[in-house]
Each structure stands twice: as structure tokens, then as C-alpha cells.
């Protein structure tokens, strides 16, 4: 039986619903040197910001039980060098490229997006993932992504800046993630993705200070799989736009959990560090499962949870 793993988002189609998550695959070129990116549905770039950011003090990552805690600090070259140095390479990649956009306030998200729009006449970018979930970014003390009104406003302003698909990326560090998902939808997002990392801290007991100089960091990897699946399930029931699930996916089985929970696509993050060839294998595993269970397309996964 043929299995269709494509997913429609905001009038466009991703042929393969398995993507690689922002911050874990760079801009494609890093891995491409080593590996064939065929088999990856979408590359979500490292965050792009208004200005270059050097990133946080080191160390920036530390391993936790079945997890990874990071505080990279949105290290990136900024929108201008992104357009000059990274964008030209995207056309040659065998997968869709989605720019992950980060900013400090709603208008700035729109401004970065508008800049990328203006400098990508050939459409190297398939769409945008709006990272409102960065714990560093605050709106009056609380993370912007935790305030429904701010998320809605951000989506609305970005919507005015582009006709390409907009995916709003949600943080799990909130009381009610479904509410944030609804706000993104109300603002005009074409999809939401979840989850970004979970706030965590690890302390070096010999040095008697947090391992990460920033204090807290974002937890990713297998440890958060159940958190991501629960969030995806809740958001899927709350919105009618597609949900892109992630958090701890290490195998096709894990990805299928997300699809059954209501996701229409998935992203693989930390697992790329363990095995950079893992995403295509996950896609193949989903196809084999779909065949075994007689599921023709991703919507057939959703009927199962009621």
C-alpha cells in the first residue's frame, strides 16, 4: 500500500513530515559535508535574530539523565549575514528549509521576517518558524511565549509580513499550552510546533555553581518525550491548524506517538547529535508502520485517539 507522508501547511506541502529541529542541524551545510540530507522533510534552521549574537558563556550544554540541557544563547550570525552566507546554500539542499526566527518583542519578529522575505526573491525559504518560546526573551518579566495576547500579536504581525507558511513554536513552560496554541491560531499562524525545551538546571556540586553559567537552560532529549507527547495531544485538541510535534524523538516509534497524539508532522532534535542519519530512518519506520496498520496518510493516524 502506498503511504503518503506529506503534510499541507498554509497552502504549501511538505512531502515528508519528518524534519530536523531548529538549533540541532545548523543550516544544513554543516552536516551536508558529511551526509546526504535526502530523506529529511524539512530543515528548521538555527534561530535567526535581528543582530548577530555571540551566544552565552561556556559550557553551553550538559548531559542530564536521558536528556540534554542547553543554553546556547541564540548564537547566530544575524539576519544580514544569514541572508548573505546561509540563504544561497539552501536552494541546493534536497529538503524544504524553514527559517526559525527569534526576537525580543512582537514587532521585531515581524521585522526579521520582513527582512528575510525581502531578501529571498527566489523562495529559498519554504516558510517561517516563529520561536516565541525562547526562555531568555521576556515580556514584562514573563516569557513572551507564555502570554497569549503577546503570542497572538506576534503571529498577527508576522502574518502581515509574509504569505509563506508561518509556524509558531510553543513553549511547554506554561500552565496551559493549549491556550497559547489557540492564541497563535487566532493571530493567523498556519501551524504550531511544540515543544521547545523545558526549563531545567544542573549544579556542579564540586564547583558549587550551576554547570551552565546562565544558570538555567533548556532540557531536550528522551527525558522530555512524555512531556512533548502530552503537550502535542492537548494542543491538537485545541486548534484546527496542523500541529508539529517534537521533544525526545529517538525512533520511529517515538515519532508515531506524536502522530497518534495528533501531530501532522514531527521534528527530530537532540537525536541528531546521537545519530545524524536518524531522521530518514524515522521516516522509513513511519512508512513501515503505516503499511502494517493500513494507514494511508497522516490524517489516518489522528482518528485513533478519538
Amino acid at each position, binding site marked *: 500500500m502506498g503511504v503518503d507522508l506529506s503534510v499541507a501547511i498554509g497552502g504549501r506541502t511538505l512531502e515528508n513530515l519528518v524534519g530536523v529541529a531548529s538549533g540541532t542541524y545548523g543550516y544544513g551545510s554543516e552536516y551536508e559535508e*558529511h551526509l546526504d540530507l535526502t530523506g529529511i522533510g524539512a530543515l528548521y534552521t538555527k534561530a535567526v535574530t535581528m543582530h548577530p549574537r555571540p551566544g552565552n558563556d*561556556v*559550557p*553551553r550544554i550538559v548531559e542530564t539523565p536521558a536528556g540534554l540541557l542547553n543554553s*546556547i544563547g541564540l*548564537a547566530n550570525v544575524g539576519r544580514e549575514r544569514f541572508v548573505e552566507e546561509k540563504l544561497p546554500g539552501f536552494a541546493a539542499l534536497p529538503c524544504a528549509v524553514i527559517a526559525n526566527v527569534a526576537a525580543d518583542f512582537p514587532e521585531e519578529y515581524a521585522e526579521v521576517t520582513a527582512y528575510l522575505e525581502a531578501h529571498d526573491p527566489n523562495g529559498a525559504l519554504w516558510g517561517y518558524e516563529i520561536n516565541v518560546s525562547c526562555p531568555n526573551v521576556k515580556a514584562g518579566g514573563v516569557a513572551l511565549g507564555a502570554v497569549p495576547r503577546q503570542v497572538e500579536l506576534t503571529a498577527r504581525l508576522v502574518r502581515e509580513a509574509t504569505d509563506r507558511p508561518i509556524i509558531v513554536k510553543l513553549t511547554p513552560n506554561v500552565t496551559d499550552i493549549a491556550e497559547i496554541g489557540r492564541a497563535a491560531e487566532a493571530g493567523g499562524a498556519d501551524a504550531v510546533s511544540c515543544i521547545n525545551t523545558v526549563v531545567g538546571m544542573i549544579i556542579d556540586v564540586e564547583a558549587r555553581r550551576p554547570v551552565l553559567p546562565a544558570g538555567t537552560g533548556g532540557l531536550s532529549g528522551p*527525558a522530555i518525550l512524555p512531556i512533548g507527547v502530552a503537550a502535542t495531544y492537548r494542543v491538537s485538541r485545541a486548534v484546527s491548524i496542523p500541529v508539529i510535534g517534537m521533544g525526545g524523538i529517538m525512533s520511529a516509534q517515538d515519532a508515531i506517538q506524536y502522530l497518534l497524539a495528533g501531530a501532522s508532522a514531527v521534528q527530530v532534535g537532540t537525536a541528531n547529535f*546521537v545519530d545524524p542519519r536518524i531522521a530518514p530512518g524515522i521516516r522509513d519506520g513511519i512508512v513501515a508502520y503505516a503499511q502494517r496498520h493500513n494507514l494511508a496518510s497522516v490524517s489516518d493516524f489522528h482518528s485513533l485517539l478519538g
Partner: protein
Amino acid sequence: MPLFDGRVLANTEIASDYYQMDFSWPTDVRAPSPGQFLTVRVSRTAVPLLRRPFGISGFIPAESHPADPPEAIASMIYWRRGPATALLAGLEPGDTLGVMGPLGVGFPAPEPFSVPILIAGGVGVGPILFLANTLAAAGYAPLLLLGARTASSMPRVNAHHHVQVRRSTDDGSLGFRGTAIDLLEQTIGVVSGRLEIFCCGPEAMLRAAHECAVRHGLPAWVAMEQTMGCGVGACMACAVRVNRPERYARVCTEGPVFRSTEIAWE
């Protein structure tokens, strides 16, 4: 194709808690150069999760030894210190080693006719040994300074006969009494020729080597370490402060070897 399954050929304790692992290296994978590293997937479960980086301590090309089918032999020297290296220490000949490599930028060739002085401490011994043997085979007469805390933690290594090895221990139980940097100072004082310094070891040692080099007006190369996520330049985890406008460079891609003056020593 830098991802491959190596076959463990030997895994030997060469000092207290130091091991040398030899493993097969496919002929279609580029040969490593000294200072480059690889990452190893130590477990199939989620604990430990990340691949671990290790320097390469030796390489025997397929042409240089009989094997059917032909394959090269690579080695690494590691310190058993935590969960991942404990698992490595448990591997036996015939076991599989999931390798990604060679990665990063290794040591540059010294100027012709210069005298390379190589200093290693702790886990730095592997890359420096590989460099020493490579330079010796290329006609240099490198001096290899190995530092350890005490005699029992001094790794037993196979150095090319053109490598002049000198050892130091903090407690004087073997060789020179003092740090490898003390030995370096002493060595610089007595060796003549155009000296060039190559160092791999704990950060304090690298900084001391750099400062020593600056004092003597010598060029120095240091191999940096930083916790790594991807190993290929994609995640920005392995940052090291450098004297450049961007402020940070990536150890895995711009390094691990840097000119010592490039590093913004804290």
C-alpha cells in the same frame, strides 16, 4: 562518509585508568591527521546520551599492514573518568564501535627545519603522540614532553625512535620533578634551533604553554576541549572565546587546534 562501525581490535590499560583502544578504520574513510578527533556513540540506550569526542592517537594505513579485506587501524587513548569512558573500558576485541570522524582541524605542519616541542598532559597524550610519530616519520626530530601526576598515571606509549621523549611527574616519582610546563621551560633553555610548540591537555596547561611561548617569542598551537553536542559545527555548543569580533569559535570545526594567540585566555 564519516560515520562508520569500527571493530575493536585491542583495548589495553596503559596507565592507571588510562586505556588505549585500537579499532578498524574502513579504507573509504579519509585518513585522520594529528589533532583531529572523532566522536563515539557509547550506548544504545539514552544513558549516556551524547556521543563523546576523543582525539586520535595513532593511525596505521591499510597499506602498512596485512588485513583481508584491507582496513586501516586507528587508536585513541582515553581516561576512564565517567559513565561513557567506563562503558568504553568494558569493550572487548570484536565489539563494535560507532565512530564519526575524522572531524575538525588538526595541527599544522611545523616550519621546515624547526624543532617541534610537543607537550601533553592528561587526556592530551593521544593527539600529541599521534603528532609526534607523524612528525618523526616526516623527518622532524620532535621532543615529546609528557606530564603526569605520578608514575602510575604516566601512560606507556609507543613513540617512533626519532621522537625524543622526556617525562615529568608532579611528585618526581618518574623523570623530571614538576609540571610539564616546568619541563618545557627547562627544555626551551637548553634546546637550540627554531622552536615551535604544540600542546594538548588541561586548559590550565594550555594557557601556561601559551604564556611560556609568548615569553620566549615562540609560536604555539593548542588543542582545545569543550563539551560537544553535534561535533560538526551545527549546534554552537562547543564555543571557545577567541580574539575575533564574533567572540567565539567552535572547537569542533574551527578547532580543536588553534594558534595560542587566537584564544582569549580568561
